[in-house]
């Protein structure tokens, strides 16, 4: 086989990288690189210059310094399950894969903290403390494969964030390697941090500020009781009304998930749950807390569901049955393969009260392009996941699916919502940022990015709709007397 000569510069880079991470942890072979050419946003592929697999913060810093010395961009990657192209390589980049940094560094039950490396799989955090009656709250459906580092970058949510919040509410400190190789800890694992909320800048930064090499997360006591129920409805209208009425009754469920007919069909085919196929919608709901409180709220919620027109309400008779219900829900995306050769996962947010109306608009838009859409989503917080079904073998369908997906975001914007509730902007939605935000808003967000990464080394071309330079800080920055004299007089 004839191979092209590798440019001298690249040879030098490869050698330097190997010097940092040791043999076998730099991938430059074209065939091996294929695995890393895309993330969960399949369909777009870009080959990185090289992949590196560091195992320590020092190695990450060393790798970043090599990239800095040669002026090459860096794309961080965890498990590669992101759905917006956040870990999609940019041409000529170094892809820094954190999947070997899987150590749990400390468990502090008393202070409800856990220190982990970024490659630790979400579910493994909970597994490490489950026997002690604790858990890690953010539970993306991909939790058995996605990494904490990826969760931090995307500010991932999950079914239970309605009551418990998102990743940003559960990360208290993070160690970040900046573009010049400097290592800094933001946030405070022990107490309320002083100063600006830099954790909020790092969580949800989509890999644009640096590489997270360690994080301290908050862990929670498992609630005393969880009651789950599954209710079916004639249509998403009744199911949507049910959600609104439950909330209006002063109940804060731990999770409320909705599935429409197509989604139910796919889930039944893929997972074997015995859900009825002849219904218009189903809700899967958890209430949790202390015993009497949960008994009361679960009972009230079931009554509300009946009054709202539920066809049937099922409550699991065992933990195994409950787990199966949730397995059905969490396997929903993958289940789409059973009803369609291809599908596009959309992620948009609308005010909860508009669910029924918006679902109808989405159905109309999809039908007008001759396609089908399945809906399985976090109804409690209005976070829609329309799955646009298509067949890539049919000329034009993929393009039409993209058109539909885009129109769905415009509907979300029109109803006062957002273009992403948990999957991030990445490359996929950067163009819509300009529809959701004004130029000055984006400029201000760019201040945050430039604070961390003025050269735009990390994940260039993501999130922002048009390339934004950082520029020099205009005007003279005159330090305050306190700053100038050194701070903290004790």
């Amino acid at each position, binding site marked *: 086989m004839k191979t092209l000569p590798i440019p001298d510069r690249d040879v030098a880079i490869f050698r330097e990288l190997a010097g940092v991470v040791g043999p076998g942890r730099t991938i430059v072979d074209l065939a091996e690189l294929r695995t890393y050419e895309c993330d969960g946003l399949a369909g777009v592929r870009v080959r990185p210059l090289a992949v590196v697999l560091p195992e320590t913060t020092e190695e990450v810093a060393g790798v970043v310094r090599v990239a800095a010395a040669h002026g090459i961009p860096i794309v961080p990657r965890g498990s590669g399950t992101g759905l917006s192209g956040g870990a999609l390589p940019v041409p000529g980049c170094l892809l820094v894969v954190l999947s070997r940094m899987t150590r749990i560094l400390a468990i502090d039950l008393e202070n409800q903290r856990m220190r982990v490396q970024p490659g630790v799989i979400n579910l493994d955090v909970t597994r490490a403390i489950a026997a002690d009656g604790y858990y890690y709250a953010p539970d993306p459906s991909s939790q058995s494969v996605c990494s904490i580092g990826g969760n931090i970058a995307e500010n991932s949510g999950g079914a239970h964030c309605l009551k418990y919040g998102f990743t940003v509410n559960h990360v208290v400190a993070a160690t970040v390697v900046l573009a010049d190789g400097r290592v800094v800890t933001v946030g405070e694992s022990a107490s309320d941090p002083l100063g600006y909320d830099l954790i909020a800048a790092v969580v949800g930064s989509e890999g644009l500020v640096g590489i997270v090499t360690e994080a301290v997360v908050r862990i929670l006591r498992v609630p005393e009781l969880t009651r789950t129920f599954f209710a079916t409805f004639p249509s998403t209208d009744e199911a949507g009304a049910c959600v609104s009425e439950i909330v209006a009754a002063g109940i804060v469920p731990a999770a409320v998930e909705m599935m429409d007919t197509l989604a139910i069909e796919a889930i039944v085919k893929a997972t074997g749950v015995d859900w009825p196929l002849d219904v218009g919608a189903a809700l899967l709901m958890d209430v949790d807390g202390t015993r009497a409180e949960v008994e009361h709220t679960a009972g009230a919620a079931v009554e509300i569901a009946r009054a709202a027109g539920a066809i049937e309400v099922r409550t699991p008779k065992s933990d195994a049955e409950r787990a199966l219900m949730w397995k059905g829900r969490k396997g929903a995306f993958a289940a789409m393969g059973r009803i369609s050769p291809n599908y596009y996962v959309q992620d948009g947010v609308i005010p909860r009260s508009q669910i029924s109306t918006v679902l109808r608009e989405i159905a109309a838009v999809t039908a007008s392009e001759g396609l089908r859409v399945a809906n399985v989503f976090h109804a409690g917080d209005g976070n829609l996941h329309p799955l646009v079904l298509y067949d890539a073998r049919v000329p034009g369908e993929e393009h039409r699916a993209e058109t539909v997906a885009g129109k769905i975001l415009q509907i979300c914007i029109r109803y006062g919502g957002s273009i992403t509730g948990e999957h991030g902007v990445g490359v996929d939605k950067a163009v819509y940022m300009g529809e959701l935000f004004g130029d000055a*808003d984006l400029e201000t967000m760019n201040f945050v990015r430039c604070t961390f990464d003025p050269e735009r080394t990390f994940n260039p071309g993501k999130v922002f709709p048009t390339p934004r330079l950082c520029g020099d800080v205009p005007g003279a920055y005159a330090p305050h007397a306190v700053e100038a004299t050194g701070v903290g007089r004790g």
Partner: protein
Amino acid sequence: MRDVRVGGTTVRGTPARSIVAPGDLAEAAAVLGDAASRGDAVAFLGGGTELGLGYAPSRVDVLVKTAHLCRVVEYAPADMVVEVEAGITLAAMQRALAPHRQRLALDAPYPELATIGGLVATNAFGPRRLRFGTFRDLIVGVSMIRADGERVRGGGKVVKNVAGFDLPKLAVGSLGTLGMIATATFRLHPVPEVARAIRVGACGADGLVALTRATIANRLEPAAFVATRDAASGTYEAHVLFEGFDAGVAEQIARFATIAEAQGLTSESLGDGERPGALDEAARTHGDVRVRISVPPGDFVAFERDALAPLANVLGDARAIVYPPLGIAFVSGYATGVPATIAALQGARRAVEALHGNLVLTDVRDPALGDAVDPYGTVPPSFFLMQRLKERFDPARRLNPGRFLGGL
């Protein structure tokens, strides 16, 4: 727009050269734009309840009062989201939500005086923080007026949103140094059917820790768990608030009483669900020396012995309220001689920082004390990033110049 010049109004002792009270957000933006073109330094004034925080700003050319910016911009009860202007007081906002049996689940002191803008800027909180968190857990959107007068926004009006960098959380606790908070949007919670408190005590610090641990171990879920310190005996009384539906609250109260009894503590059920909030306010708004302390909750006994008790013993008429599950304490009282008070504050800070916590002066009346003891203490290792952030947002450093951590 009312352009009032009031003699004697100061921000941490720095006199304001002029005071402006814009009538709406457009006027506020114009005020900031004008200030930018003149190079004026700007500070913000809400209810004036937290003016004791931080360093003295190096200058205040224009003090922007938010008093007239007090509209509810949008309230969607069905979505449990509200957007309000910065000058509305916490109490006025809660009154607007009450007819729908909803609330912002945050119970900071002085609700009738404190404005939303001021509360967000100081990251204020009260006892319900245990259950509902702080502003960073409740804010979903913000609109700000930048140093250059530009109006910008981040987040939105839905409770779940990851589009773009999180400007709302950056505004929280930024003490008016990144921009003027113009409006804030919050997720709301239902007003519970019942709220009942129980008082337990008295016990020492170790007893308080045991009570806290037993509460967590038994998976009770109080909305608030605070304890007041008796200055004479150095013992604590816990005040624990349960909220929810009647049946659930009754069960939790009964179980909590049993837990307390098992530890040899007497308990008394209290009807008034506001009691922890009232105690909190009383302790935090007392005296002429006030501090807020945060430490890992697991080290509470050491913290109490090495920092809290010695400080409280030096202050006159000392009060302390602690949040044992969160490792938070507020200590207040009267300075008893400058050297003794300085030594006590510095000693407490050393002990707290040794536990990886921090001690912040929230109000110190005597300038001699304020000059001698840093309001914040040791800056975190990420301080250089905070400096860079400030440079980006306010390159000419005209917003509350030098007031915040490390002179930001």
